Structure formats: structure tokens, C-alpha cells
């Protein structure tokens, strides 16, 4: 059911076809690649919360720190950058908030979690370096 | 002794609706306070990282303790077979449920994350006394509910004694559990005492009965139902015994603490310190909250007056609040003895530098939230009395007294 609702969200409201987000700019693949012949990552769109929940307990309780399904990993990749500074993923229209607002699903993660990539994020550093070189 | 007839209260008078409206207003105020605290965080309360449990907890624990005590009247009737108390059983059981509901409401609304109620009731750490209490509280509601049904449904009457036994045992465990919330805290010198659990049981007898008597008096007076002296005198004497028992436990608790040198700091802090806790202990708990009501209940001139008995009940409740305030907040106000052999010269986190104690002043939202819990209990009772047959039509001596000739 939830999956169905998610599928019905109009394309335009989804932030992941923005061109400028960090990971896309650097040519990164999602931890779950888009299925063959699809244009949208339906698996992630429908089930990201399950994967996040599963991973959350592994990291919190057992210290498993792979990038796969780590919220930090998502943010490092999917945040956009404006004027050399990362934009909060829960700001209107951004990766998390854009979709959650359209689907009217409460977003609880960011009462605690940071909303921009870590200052130690390799992707962010790489992105900034690439774009400072542009200038 | 005649057969007891129970009848719903009319509940049509302006006074009745006024009462409901008044209680409703307090509840609205409490919801506003809750929203305010929840929205801004606990920074707007008087609670800090030093005084982590504050006024809401005083109210909540008072109501929870009183809840199990309020059930005593029913237990005396069913378990100990005292006929005189039988007609009082239904009111006793519903009051117990209502008080518990009120207390739990306050406890829940003070949580840092009240939105996680589901987590609280589905994820259990079975080593936690708090978690046991969550089970004990829900169980209490269920068992007392069944007990009430057996008392009220004629066909089930014959089983009510068994349900009464179950409820009685359960309530003893429940109050032991509530007392143990504090009793097992090894870190805190004021709490680390096994006597906490039995002391809480005796406190529940006293607070619960005082509230019960006030509800009984008010209900019978406002509905013009006769309430005879036999019952009033019996309850009055029982209350006197309970008040004295609480005092006794208080004395023993402090004496045992005084015996152990490591507990001397906390004892002198409470008993002879220069903070408000010493004042509240001696004046609030001992003099105004225990000795004065005892005097009122046994001095012939006042003991014969309903009004003075009611005042004594009120003072007992005041004493109960004072006692819980001193235990709960006074117990936190003395900094933890992290370095028992050392004086603290400097600290980056309020460790009681040079013997400084922690201050606490309850903010208004906290107090209103607590009063909201009381109002929740009372509104439940007020409403219940109207919709079901809880209140006997008459408790005049010739109706209620088994020995009446």
C-alpha cells in the first residue's frame, strides 16, 4: 500500500532528478542500482525506510559501519550544494523533504540526525574540489 | 442490615455540570502546559540535569500510590470479610482506577518523547523496575476492572471475593514496585533503602483513604444521600492508624539512615539543613500533614465534626505531597557522592562545589500538568458515578451497619 502511494507521487516533486546533487554530479551509483529499463529507483523509493531501520540497529548496537543504507551515506550523496555550502536535505524541495511532503509522511530522522553531509565526507570534499577547480 | 441499593447519581444539576466544567478547564490547562513543555523542551520547566524528576513526578507518584490505597476499602470488604465496608467497595475500585489513570497521564505527558508511547509499552527491558511497573499498572487496571464487574453483576457476585484477593495481592505488589523505583537506586543515598517499598505501601493506605473519604463525603453531601456516623467513624479511626503508621515508617527510615555513617550527609541535609526541604519535612510532612490531622481525628470536639474530619483528610493529602516532594526532589537536591572522601573544589557540571546543593523551583506548567492529572482522576469518577451504579443510595446507620438493631 505504502509502496503504491509512493509510486503515484508525481515525478516533478521528486528531488532525485535534480541534476546538481553531490553523488550524481560525481557519477556515483546508489547502493541499490536502478532496475534495468526503469527510470526511477522504485526499490529505494518504496523500501528505503526498511533498509534504514535494519541498518540503524546494526550500526547502533553492533557498530557495523558500512556505507550501505547508512543515513549518513544517503545524505553525503544526495545533498545538494549551493554557493559552496551543502543544503539541508530536509529543506523544502530537497531530497528527503521534497518526497516526504508530497507523500505526507512525517520525517522524524532529523530531530536528531544532521541534515548536511559531515565535514569529513569524502564525497563532499571531492565535490567541492571538483567545483572549485571549475572556477 | 438492609440490602444495599446502588443508584446512579442524578448529574443534572448546575452544580454537577459546573464541577465537570471546572475539572475540564484544569485538564485543558494541563494540555496547554504539556504542549508548551513538549514544544520548547524541558528547558522551560524547573527541571535540570541535576533535578531530573520534578513536580510532575511528585503528582504522578502521589496519584499512583494513592490509587492502590483507594482500593483498600474494597479489599477490607472482600478479602477481610468486613460487612460494613462492602457497600463502599464499588466506589473504592472505580476511584482506584481513576487515580491510576490520572497519575499515568502525568507521567506520560512529562516524558521527553511522549510520542513514543508505543515504544514504552511494546519494548521491555525486564530487568527494569520501571518496565515491571508498566505491566503492574496495566494489570491493575484489568484486575480491578474485573473485580468491579464481579461486584456489580449479580450473577458474578459469588466470585467477587476471589477477584478481591487477586486485586489485593496485585495492589501490594504494585506499590512495592513503585517504592522500589527509588529503593533500588544504589547511586542515591536518599533512596538506597529497602524500607522504601513497605513505606510506600503504608503511604498508599493513608493517601488513598484520605482521598476516598473526601470523595465519599462530597458525593453523599452533594447528592443529599444519608451517610451514617458508624461508617464515618470507622473510616476516621482507620485513617488515624494509617497516618500514625506512615509516621512510624518515616522515623524508622531516618533512624536506619542515621545509623549508617555514609548516609549522614543526606540525613542532616533533610532533617537539619537550611533549605526548604527541611522546612517542608518538619512543617509540611510531620506537623501540618501528620500530627495536626491526627489531633483533629482524635480530639473529641473535632473528631465529631464531618467538616473537621474532611479538613484532616485534606491535611493528610497535603502531608503526602510534602513527603513525596522531600523524598523525590530533596533526594536529588543533595549532589551525588561521586567522591565520598573528597571535597569538590571545581566542577564543569554542577557536582556540588564546596557543598552547594541543587536548587529546584517548579514552573507553572509543571504544576498545572500535575493538577491536570488530579482533574483527570476526578472527572472520571464524577462521570462514572453518573453512568453506572457505583454509589449506594443510603449509607445511613440502619442500612449500612451490620450490628444495627
Amino acid at each position, binding site marked *: 500500500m505504502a509502496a503504491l502511494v509512493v509510486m503515484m507521487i508525481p515525478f516533478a516533486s521528486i528531488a532525485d532528478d535534480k541534476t546538481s546533487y553531490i553523488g550524481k554530479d560525481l557519477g556515483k551509483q546508489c547502493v541499490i542500482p536502478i532496475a534495468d529499463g526503469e527510470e526511477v529507483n522504485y526499490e529505494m523509493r518504496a523500501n528505503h525506510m526498511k533498509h534504514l531501520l535494519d541498518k540503524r540497529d546494526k550500526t547502533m548496537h553492533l557498530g557495523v559501519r558500512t556505507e550501505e543504507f547508512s543515513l549518513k551515506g544517503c545524505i553525503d550523496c544526495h545533498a545538494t550544494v549551493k554557493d559552496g555550502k551543502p543544503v539541508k536535505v530536509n529543506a523544502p524541495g530537497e531530497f528527503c523533504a521534497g518526497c516526504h511532503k508530497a507523500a505526507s509522511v512525517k520525517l522524524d530522522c532529523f530531530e536528531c540526525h544532521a541534515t548536511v553531509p559531515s565535514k569529513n565526507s569524502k564525497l563532499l570534499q571531492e565535490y567541492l574540489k571538483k567545483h572549485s577547480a571549475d572556477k | 442490615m438492609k440490602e444495599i441499593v446502588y443508584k446512579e447519581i442524578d448529574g443534572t444539576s448546575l452544580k454537577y455540570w459546573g464541577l465537570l466544567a471546572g475539572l475540564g478547564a484544569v485538564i485543558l490547562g494541563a494540555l496547554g502546559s504539556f504542549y508548551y513543555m513538549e514544544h520548547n523542551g524541558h528547558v522551560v520547566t524547573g527541571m535540570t540535569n541535576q533535578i531530573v524528576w520534578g513536580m510532575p513526578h511528585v503528582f504522578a507518584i502521589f496519584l499512583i500510590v494513592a490509587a492502590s490505597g483507594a482500593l483498600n476499602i474494597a479489599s477490607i470488604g472482600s478479602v477481610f470479610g468486613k460487612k460494613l465496608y462492602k457497600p463502599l467497595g464499588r466506589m473504592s475500585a472505580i476511584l482506584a482506577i481513576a487515580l491510576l489513570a490520572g497519575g499515568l497521564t502525568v507521567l506520560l505527558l512529562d516524558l521527553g518523547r511522549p510520542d513514543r508511547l508505543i515504544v514504552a509499552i511494546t519494548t521491555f527491558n525486564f530487568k*527494569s523496575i520501571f518496565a515491571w511497573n508498566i505491566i503492574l499498572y496495566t494489570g491493575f487496571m484489568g484486575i480491578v476492572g474485573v473485580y468491579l464487574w464481579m461486584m456489580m453483576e449479580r450473577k458474578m457476585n459469588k466470585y467477587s471475593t476471589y477477584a478481591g484477593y487477586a486485586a489485593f495481592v496485585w495492589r501490594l505488589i504494585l506499590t512495592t514496585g513503585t517504592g522500589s523505583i527509588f529503593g533500588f537506586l544504589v547511586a542515591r543515598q536518599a533512596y538506597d533503602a529497602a524500607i522504601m517499598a513497605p513505606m510506600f505501601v503504608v503511604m498508599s493506605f493513608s493517601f488513598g483513604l484520605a482521598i476516598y473519604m473526601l470523595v465519599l463525603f462530597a458525593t453523599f453531601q452533594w447528592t443529599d444521600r444519608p451517610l451514617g456516623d458508624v461508617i464515618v467513624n470507622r473510616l476516621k479511626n482507620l485513617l488515624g492508624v494509617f497516618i500514625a503508621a506512615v509516621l512510624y515508617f518515616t522515623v524508622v527510615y531516618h533512624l536506619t539512615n542515621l545509623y549508617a555513617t555514609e548516609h549522614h550527609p543526606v540525613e542532616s541535609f533533610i532533617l537539619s539543613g537550611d533549605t526548604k526541604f527541611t522546612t517542608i519535612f518538619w512543617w509540611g510532612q510531620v506537623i501540618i500533614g501528620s500530627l495536626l490531622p491526627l489531633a483533629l481525628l482524635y480530639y473529641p470536639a473535632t473528631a465529631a465534626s464531618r467538616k473537621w474530619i474532611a479538613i484532616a483528610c485534606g491535611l493528610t493529602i497535603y502531608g503526602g505531597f510534602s513527603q513525596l516532594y522531600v523524598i523525590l526532589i530533596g533526594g536529588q537536591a543533595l549532589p551525588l557522592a561521586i567522591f565520598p572522601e573528597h571535597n569538590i573544589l571545581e566542577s564543569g557540571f554542577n557536582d556540588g562545589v564546596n557543598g552547594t546543593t541543587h536548587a529546584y523551583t517548579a514552573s507553572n506548567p509543571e504544576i498545572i500538568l500535575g493538577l491536570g492529572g488530579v482533574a483527570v482522576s476526578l472527572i472520571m469518577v464524577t462521570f462514572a458515578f453518573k453512568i453506572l451504579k457505583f454509589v449506594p443510595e443510603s449509607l445511613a446507620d440502619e442500612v449500612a451497619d451490620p450490628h444495627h438493631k
Partner: protein
Amino acid sequence: MNEKTENPDLDRRKFLGKALTTGAAATVASGVVLVNVADAKAPEAEASSEVRWGMLVDTAKCTDCGDCVTACNDEHGLNPAEGESEKPLTDSKWIRMVKIEHKSTGKVTSLPMMCQHCENPPCVDVCPTGASFKRPDNIVLVDKHICIGCRYCMMACPYKARSFVHEAIENQVAEAPRGKGTVESCTMCMHLVDDDKNPACVDACKEKALTFGNIKDKASDISIALKNSESRAIREDLGLNPGVRYKGI
């Protein structure tokens, strides 16, 4: 510009990663000795009960400078948000300096206090939801996803190690999620420890008063130091067997 000079950190980390995985001894030029290779944990590995992280504080070396406190606050984003002033009664403190004087001898000692990472932590016993928990490697943590903010753990902790987050926070760092209405305390910098680094306070101490390591590994620096010198746990009488121990109190 030359790529290498622009981001030396990245390259150093890559080098270290390789060094660790190939099992080479990992001693870096600056004299920082990394934890033993045997303890190195791959990102996908789970924390092991073969490891118990501990810390030894040598109070004789402590100069009361507070660098450890500053490092902790910076590492976990505990400083007040911009434009906000400190609120000493309600702000979170994961580590603090305490200066104590012995009642009989008058000896004055300064030391850092933080979560002592007990083997038998009272906070874990009392937590109704199991949000207070112990990792297999004995790091004591709060799972803020299931913490309901009842503060019973704060009542139970003999070290006043825990703080309640009293107001909404927006300046979290990615490595230390924290939010209003939940309880928090020292995590022994688990995000660094899982990455084979030392906790921030340990690296910040110029006097090397803090030794960190696996106390179950008898060959580790901390185990050797513990074995060869007198150390005490705070409130040893409670029998909680903390992972943090102190020399000179």
C-alpha cells in the same frame, strides 16, 4: 594545483587503511600509536565481546587544561548554537573537569569525568525500554531511537554521566546524532573507535594523561599500564567494574 598536497588527509587515511589491512605495524610519523592491528575492525565487522574498550586516566599528568572537554564538545557538536549562550544547568556535558580535595590529607587532584562504561551499568538495568544498552565491546550507549526520555537512567547513574537534551537542537554533527527529549552521554567516540582511532579526548590530551585501548588484550598499552601500576575505579564500593580507571586518587 597538485591534488596530493590539497588533500593530504585523504591520502594518509588510504595509506593507513592499506597498512592496517596488510597487517603492517601502524606507527605514524607524529608518534601517535594506533591501536593494535589485532583489534582493527573492518567496517562490516560487528563489535566483538573479545574486546573491552577502557581508559586509564593518570591524574598526576592532568594539568586541568580542559583540552579534553573542548575536544569532546567539538567532536560531538555540544557547543551552544551560534548566538546562544551557555545554560549551565541544562546543557549537555559528556565530559567535564572536576577538581577534588581529599578530606583528610588535603591532596588536590584534577581529573576528567565522563561515562565510566561500567561492566554492570545501573543505567542499563533501569531503562524501561532497553534504550540504555551495552555494546558487545562494553561501550555503554543510549539508543535514542527508542529512548522515551523518562530519565530513570540519570537517577540511577552514580557518576552523573548523563544529560537530558532540554531543547531542540539544529547544529548536530553527522557523527553524533542528538535531539530534544532524549538522554545522552559519552559514547567513547564509538564512531572513531570503530574506525580504529582514539577517542577525541585521548588524542586531545597534550600530557598523554589518557590511555585508551582494549583491556581484554593483555598486550595492549592500557593492559600493561593497568597491570603495572595502582589504579582505582570511582565508587569502587558499588562493584560496577567501570571501564574507566584512575591513577592517583
